[in-house]
């Protein structure tokens, strides 16, 4: 059975390592914060200028001057740091983040990603996404395997305007955990109850099934 959004986030959370600095995009990536494993301390960055993001505030602690990159009210934790936008992206562009998790409309077997623009539709902008994919070595894409019309989002080549080129190495979808290696998607883990065939049928790009492909554990 396909994973829920929560389960996608839960699977990604398993990749977190103690001490990492992590930027979580809007949508499924945000949910990753709810599944950080016991004993693993990660510091969440919000690119509008906060390192060490805490949970949403209680009613009495809401502060209009303290929001995250999704414009949601948040809190700080002991050890948090505030900074300006150029300092924030110095961290990102300079390769100091250990992991970026973000959503995508399309990715392809060359590691390209498209997640900001659909021609003919209202464009809201790329925000910090282009900086994050260009600046972070370690990126995990969180998305559904197919779009709402049932078409694959794992392509030979992205059709939408790109956010970044040759930057994606890992993706967790509702069906599987895949890596991108040597110009192909490599199927590493299957969601419980999902078959290799199902993944193959919904993957438009070249797919290699790893010898040790296995079922995800939670």
């Amino acid at each position, binding site marked *: 059975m396909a994973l829920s959004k929560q389960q996608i986030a839960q699977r990604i959370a398993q990749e977190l390592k103690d001490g990492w600095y992590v930027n979580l995009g809007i949508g499924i990536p945000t949910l990753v914060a709810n599944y950080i494993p016991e004993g693993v301390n990660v510091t969440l960055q919000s690119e*509008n200028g906060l390192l060490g993001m805490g949970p949403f505030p209680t009613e009495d602690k809401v502060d209009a*001057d*303290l929001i995250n990159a999704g*414009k949601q009210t948040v809190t700080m934790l002991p050890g948090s740091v505030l900074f300006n936008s150029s300092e924030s992206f110095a961290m990102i562009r300079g390769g100091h983040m250990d992991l970026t998790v973000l959503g995508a409309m399309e990715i392809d077997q060359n590691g390209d990603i498209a997640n900001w623009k659909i021609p003919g539709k209202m464009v809201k902008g790329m925000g910090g996404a282009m900086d994050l994919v260009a600046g972070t070595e370690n990126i995990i894409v969180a998305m559904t395997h197919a779009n709402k019309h049932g078409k694959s989002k794992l392509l030979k080549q992205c059709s939408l305007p790109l956010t970044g080129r040759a930057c994606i190495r890992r993706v967790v979808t509702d069906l599987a955990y895949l890596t991108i290696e040597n110009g192909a998607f490599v199927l590493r883990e299957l969601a419980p109850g999902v078959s290799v065939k199902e993944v193959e049928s919904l993957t438009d790009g070249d797919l290699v099934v790893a010898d040790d492909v296995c079922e995800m554990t939670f």
Partner: protein
Amino acid sequence: MSKKLYANAREALAGIEDNMTLMLGGFGLCGIPENCIRELVRLNIKGLICISNNAGVDDFGIGLMLQQRQVVKMISSYVGENAEFERQMLSGELEVELLPQGTLAEKCRAGGAGIPSFFTATGYGTEVAEGKETREIDGRMYVLEPGLTADFAYVKAWKGDKYGNLIFKGTARNFNPVMAMAGKITIAEVEELVEPGELDPNFIHTPGIFVQRIFEGVDYEKRIEQRTITQ
């Protein structure tokens, strides 16, 4: 130096004219120069090029200026949450240049720091790089981005003194310090004007040299876009 101190937005905004290029601090509605925007709306200056990470919402922030069609071009990284903006953009009344958020921030800093252009990997291979010089450096491709300056930069700080020294609060800092650097004339509105010496010299975010005019703002609304609560 006492000449930096102005009584209010009306006095501080003297000299603004049609067709100027403005920078406006803030991220979403957080840390925006509310008093300056209110005055820009009142003056109804037209033909403005606005550099701001976002474009406000329909009835607040830069959205108020869009309603009056004061803006001919926005340079931003994200412009959602604004129906009037969308209408003007799709109809071609409003030109929009979208830039990656970090590139936008760095372009402002560069403009303020006397750096005419810099290379960044961000946006290489995307629409953002179209028409721009690209170059391979140590095996990686980069895009050359020019610095940005503005006729006026409007920033909002938490506290400031008559020398123009500023401190910001929380994530309301965002683009304000780099835009303060990049304004030919930078106007700072502060929630609280304090005496020189009250701000610890070791913890000032924007040194007064970057600020030409300062005033204590009034009636801050500080609207919240996404009020998210833990029960």
